[in-house]
């Protein structure tokens, strides 16, 4: 996952687009997410003003990172925690590995963390012979299946209940055709022993307050609480963009994240972690480490246009809203962050050459921006990437030629009429001899699953001229 073959995006997207079973599974979850999100926002008083406030909180925080990050570090350290800085994925993995090795940790339990997926921590731990167990049910399922997650919030969205039952039968010896309840109970049973035996718990961080040094971990299952309570060491992984200025800024964020992610007013559990167990506390970790990760984020930060992508709360609402995501799923994107927001941040985090197709994988329908709790203008950012790719990536030259030709044609009405006349003729020929469409790749592409439109024999321009001639005074 750290070095995804994201450049095969087209082929994977095309394959997934033909997978009707995948579409059914994606629809089951994403449409319900969308419906429930719509309901819970409709019921929230001043929802739009709250979105504005949440965006303002993030805008302030991102522009103030240079002061907030050191402040967070100072508070977190004063609270007894240890802060580590990682420039990239390899450094972040090395830090976690070092903490684990020093403490002789053999088993790590993991709460859900997209950063962990981003840096491919499990592979790094496995290479050092340390077992890492995912404990979020969805993450556990995809780990058993040997797959990466395919959705930010619902990692196993691409698997049906029967798929999971088959998997648990194979890997855990559970009976086939188990219900969702039975499968969940099986995971609870297996993972309870892991929680008790693990020497280290790893979680993500949804928000951090620079004011108090608190790390906020949002979840529903209780696995995050287990991971940050039971093992002797808790390691929290956090991108630099997660810090906000004040404790009171957490409330507006907590108000919107669960509503956007799962249609809940609040998740079952929110932990505000400020450090290791105090002397008068009866459980909790002896050590708490915070790993602060850059891994390309400062490239987004340095970009005044793309910077707002760092406001993202990782709620996954834009995935559910995206017509493209709903037909190809998360795996096609080849990266931990999929969907519209993935298409915006992947070019910055991975390098635009490697994922140059992603920004084009959108109809620019705007549904992502409509559901984004902090109103990230994703279509605008995708257009911006397209402009940069067109200007910089050599394979756009053929397209540039076409666009330049159309620009020249459309800039001159006589040329426009001649050229569109030629197009009409070409379409008429193809209509009679469909095999000829193969000579014109865009027409061949269109005919895959659709009938070609027919050009009018008399375009509107000509009809208007004829009418003008017939009645010179107009209507």
């Amino acid at each position: 996952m750290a070095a995804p073959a994201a450049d095969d995006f087209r082929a994977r997207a095309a394959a997934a687009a033909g997978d009707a079973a995948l579409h059914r599974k994606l629809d089951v979850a994403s449409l319900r997410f969308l419906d429930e999100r719509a309901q819970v926002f409709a019921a929230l008083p001043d929802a739009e003003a709250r979105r504005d406030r949440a965006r303002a909180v993030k805008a302030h925080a991102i522009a103030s990172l240079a002061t907030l990050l050191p402040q967070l570090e100072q508070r977190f350290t004063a609270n007894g925690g240890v802060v580590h800085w990682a420039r990239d994925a390899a450094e972040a993995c090395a830090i976690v590995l070092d903490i684990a090795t020093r403490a002789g940790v053999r088993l790590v339990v993991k709460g859900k963390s997209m950063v962990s997926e981003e840096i491919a921590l499990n592979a790094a731990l496995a290479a050092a012979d340390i077992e890492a167990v995912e404990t979020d049910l969805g993450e556990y399922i995809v780990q058993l299946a040997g797959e990466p997650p395919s959705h930010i919030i619902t990692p196993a969205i691409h698997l049906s209940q029967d798929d999971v039952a088959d998997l648990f039968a194979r890997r855990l010896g559970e009976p086939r055709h188990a219900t969702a309840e039975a499968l969940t109970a099986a995971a609870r049973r297996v993972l309870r022993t892991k929680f008790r035996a693990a020497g280290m718990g790893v979680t993500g961080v949804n928000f951090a307050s620079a004011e108090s040094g608190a790390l906020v971990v949002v979840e529903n299952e209780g696995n995050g609480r287990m991971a940050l309570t039971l093992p002797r060491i808790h390691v929290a992984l956090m991108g630099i963009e997660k810090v906000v200025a004040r404790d009171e800024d957490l409330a507006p964020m907590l108000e919107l994240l669960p509503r956007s992610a799962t249609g809940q007013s609040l998740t079952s559990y929110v932990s505000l972690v400020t450090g290791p167990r105090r002397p008068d506390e009866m459980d909790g970790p002896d050590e708490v480490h915070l790993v602060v990760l850059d891994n390309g984020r400062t490239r987004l930060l340095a970009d005044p246009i793309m910077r707002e992508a760092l406001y993202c709360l990782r709620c996954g609402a834009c995935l559910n809203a995206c017509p493209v995501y709903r037909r190809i799923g998360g795996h096609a994107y080849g990266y931990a962050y999929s969907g519209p927001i993935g298409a915006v941040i992947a070019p910055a985090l991975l390098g635009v050459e490697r994922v140059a197709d992603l920004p084009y994988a959108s109809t620019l329908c705007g549904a992502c921006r409509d559901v984004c709790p902090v109103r990230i203008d994703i279509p605008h950012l995708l257009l911006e990437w397209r402009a940069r790719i067109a200007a910089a990536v050599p394979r756009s030259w053929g397209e540039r030629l076409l666009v330049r030709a159309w620009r020249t044609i459309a800039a001159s009405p006589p040329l426009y009429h001649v050229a569109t006349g030629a197009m009409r003729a070409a379409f008429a020929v193809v209509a009679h001899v469909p095999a000829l469409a193969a000579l014109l790749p865009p027409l061949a592409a269109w005919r895959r699953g659709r009938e070609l439109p027919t050009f009018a024999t008399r375009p509107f321009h000509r009809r208007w001229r004829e009418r003008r001639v017939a009645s010179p005074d107009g209507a």
Partner: protein
Amino acid sequence: MARKTVLDAVRDALADAVVPPLPRLARASAAPDRHVLAARFAREAGTVGTIVHEVEGLGAAISAVAAVLAATATSPRVVAWPTPLARTVATAAVAATPGASLHIVDDAATAPGRDPADDLAAVRAATTDVIAAADVGITEAEYLVADSGTLVLRAAGRARGVSLLPPVHVAVVACDRLVADLGAALAHLRATGARDSCITLVTGPSRTADIEKKLVVGVHGPCTLHVVLLAPPEA
């Protein structure tokens, strides 16, 4: 090294950035009447599957908890926080429940009778074993957030596991702990200067919808959450 590189990159990246003002956050004006808050809490908590028992007076609270214990197991093993209300209610409720046993989770490190030669980590692990084997965990809550039906749990002087490991969690809370919204709860907490290693917000039992979006209640945390909302006896 990495620290300097990352922070330098952040500073360079933001050299041209204008910091927009922090938004003014809406604060609940005058706190609504306790009955209004209690009704709102009960409604919101109910929608996420929390079972709310509104009772008047300590005796009624004890009866409510005893009823939960009796319904949970034939000889329920109970763990409870050592805080006064939890201790009192748990002790009386267990006494009223045939076969029930109670372990008040005190600080194992300072518990009377502990052999100082004992390995502290082993003592803690043994305590966690007891909590994990329990059928019911009884706690209090620092605040109840009416708007979202949320319990705010502190860690100081307590074991977090009591609200996490047993399949049934019962929180006994006096209704003067009700606040309107999460912002108010966080502000109160700050004002008290709490230095707990962890503040936990609990809104309903543990749940998942990771398989085909089907809601399953009771994953890693409790399957059932009761809140005994204790009002003083009406005069």
